[in-house]
């Protein structure tokens, strides 16, 4: 089978990919259908708008409180986990995170690593690094397994194979899974995946998982899932490695229920997932199963950059529910792959610039109509539209006093645009110049060019009216 990981394509080609995706009727149909389904399921979970606002306020408060104390909480978490027998590692960037994991894997002469769903492992492209190191990393979440089998990347953070129809999956299994026949029955397809993966859980040397919440006071890693593959990965192999972004920590266990309740309801419209797995340590003497060795890898990868600015810090409140993408009119039309980044949709547009720099991603914050749907559904009230506007600005100008320069600061700056804005400012601050310009523009309107750069790609050309507004108002006032 194909376990070769793919690298993400550069985000700068976003526009070409978006255009191709919009032209793909079949893809648009899949996403529209799936997103409408998820939107409906979520709405059914929140019948009372007042109660929802109270829950969101509490969740936002918990996330803001945790972030305000982040360095202290990370140290407390490290202390607690170490006491519990879990080894803690820190990685500033993807290379370091991969190095840590590959070192552990080599120490255990690993051939096979089974993986539960982890977006951070996608972020650092762990599968690729493992393949380069001659070890197999196998995705075990059904959706992730399907996309990996087809050599693809997830197109949604919660439902990775949402872009595929069951016919496509039926063909894929018949071709790639030894011994599997062609079937379009979803139950049978899941049965095939179950049988293959159960074998793998048994033989794997290492299990890798993500983390949804890390609790500092007890040293507990919480995992949310429906399938049970996460529990398999964290229980059957002898070694368990958890990987997470540094922002996932909360102080107290009691801070978890409000976030967990909103996470599952916002993500898939479920009041709770089948499993909520709280892990506080490896197998103790006398216990008969569970890993004998546990590690946690804390990954920065640009998160400290977001943290260093008080407005951008709210990006880190995210609990990765995916509701913002489900409700995004742009995401629904172009799907997850067009973004070219690990995190698609609105959350991707605000987090990717910190991970990859504005040079590669400045186009992403522009992939929004600023309709505000994302900010309205976000369970932790991240003001996503405000952050999009802020990032658009940071891409256009040099560093300003008051905050650190962002990676790729001013990457989208252009002399032409700067000159246009300078001209605009001059015009609007000098009344005589403004009148003269208005007179000229209306009198010579016939000379307006029919092709107006980006504007006319999908819109009719702009053309000034025959008279300025001032002239028309003056005419009305005359008796």
């Amino acid at each position, binding site marked *: 089978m194909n376990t070769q990981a793919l690298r993400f394509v550069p985000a700068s080609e976003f526009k070409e990919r978006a255009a191709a995706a919009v032209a793909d009727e079949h893809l648009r149909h899949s996403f529209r259908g799936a997103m409408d*389904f998820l939107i409906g399921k979520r709405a059914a979970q929140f019948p009372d708008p007042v109660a929802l606002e*109270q829950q969101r306020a*509490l969740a936002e*408060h918990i996330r803001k*409180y945790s972030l*305000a104390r982040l360095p202290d909480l*990370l140290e407390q978490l490290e202390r607690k986990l170490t006491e519990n027998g879990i080894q803690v590692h*820190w990685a*500033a960037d993807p290379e*370091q995170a991969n190095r840590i994991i590959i070192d552990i894997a080599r120490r255990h002469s690993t051939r096979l690593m089974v993986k539960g769903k982890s977006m951070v492992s996608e972020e650092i492209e762990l599968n690729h690094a493992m393949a380069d190191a001659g070890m197999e990393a196998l995705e075990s979440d*059904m959706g992730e397994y*399907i996309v990996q089998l087809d050599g693809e990347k997830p197109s949604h953070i919660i*439902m*990775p194979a949402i872009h595929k129809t*069951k016919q496509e999956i039926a063909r894929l299994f018949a071709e790639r899974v030894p011994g599997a026949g062609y079937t379009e029955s*979803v*139950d049978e397809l*899941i*049965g095939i995946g*179950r049988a293959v*993966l*159960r074998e793998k*859980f*048994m033989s794997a040397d290492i299990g890798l998982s993500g983390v949804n919440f890390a609790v500092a*006071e*007890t040293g507990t890693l919480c995992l949310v899932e*429906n*399938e*049970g*593959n996460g*529990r*398999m990965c964290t*229980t*059957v192999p002898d070694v368990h490695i958890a990987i997470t972004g540094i922002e996932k920590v909360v102080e*107290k*266990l*009691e*801070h978890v*229920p*409000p976030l967990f309740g909103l996470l599952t309801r916002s993500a*898939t419209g479920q*009041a*709770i*997932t*089948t*499993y909520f*797995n*709280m892990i*506080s340590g*490896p197998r*103790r003497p006398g*216990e*008969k*199963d*569970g890993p004998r060795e546990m590690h946690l890898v*804390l990954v*920065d990868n640009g998160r400290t950059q977001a943290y*260093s*600015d008080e407005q951008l*810090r709210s990006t880190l409140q995210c609990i990765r529910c995916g509701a913002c993408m489900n409700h995004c009119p742009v995401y629904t039309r172009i799907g997850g792959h067009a973004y070219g980044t690990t995190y698609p949709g609105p959350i991707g547009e605000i987090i990717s610039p910190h991970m990859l720099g504005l040079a590669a991603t400045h186009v992403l914050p522009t992939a929004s109509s600023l309709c505000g749907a994302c900010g309205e559904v976000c369970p932790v009230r991240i003001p996503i539209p405000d952050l999009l506007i802020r990032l658009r600005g940071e891409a256009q100008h040099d560093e300003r006093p008051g905050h650190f320069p962002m990676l790729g600061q001013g990457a989208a700056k252009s002399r032409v645009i700067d000159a246009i804005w300078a001209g605009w400012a001059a015009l609007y601050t000098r009344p005589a110049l403004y009148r003269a310009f208005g007179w000229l523009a209306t009198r010579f309107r016939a000379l307006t060019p029919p092709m107006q750069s980006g504007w006319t790609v999908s819109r009719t050309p702009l053309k000034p009216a025959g008279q300025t507004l001032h002239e028309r108002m003056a005419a009305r006032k005359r008796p």
Partner: protein
Amino acid sequence: MSDRDDILQRLRAAPRGKAPLLPDVSAFHAALAAGMPASTPAARRTLFCEKMAFWHGEVVRVTHDSWPEKLRELCLAKGVRSLLCGERHAVALRGAGIEGLKTYDRPLEEWKAELFQNIEAGLTSTRGGIAETGTLIIWPDASEPRLLSLVPPIHFALLDARQIYDNLFTAMSEQGWSAGMPTNALLVSGPSKTADIQVTLAYGAHGPKELIVLLLVDEEELA
């Protein structure tokens, strides 16, 4: 500088702003509860059963004396030829004469393949239930290992009806979880499932395909 120091230093160098107060989760829940009719054990039990049914979990009422016998009947009815239990209930179950009864009494490594291939059902205790979401609280330990509730295709779970809490927050505060977590604690709501293929729900993804709750009630209630 190590990555650790580097990350911590960058976080500490960031502007602090106004620090938010400690969120008061218990006040939030108290306010919620004040606006609702008083919670009673009967109401909690009804809600639990309703929600568990929604997750495709079956609830069977049993008593403290009769549950091993009831379990034997259920195993027969479902054609279960091998039931795995922890040491805690081994004696009671042996007394009921359940066929193919096995005890999880060895480390996983010694019988991994057998566990995965030859066991058809598993029985675990629970530490309680949660009414709001139809959830079981399971705390695996040396007697009832973690995989007992995961690998066998059918999961039987014994729940004391008096141990059903309103919601997750009340369960964790009344049971004092933060004073000491086990190596692995679990919330389980129904059999394992997935909607990863065309958002079509399918049960038995990687874990149990069936979840049957044996709800322990008083003798009189059963009659």
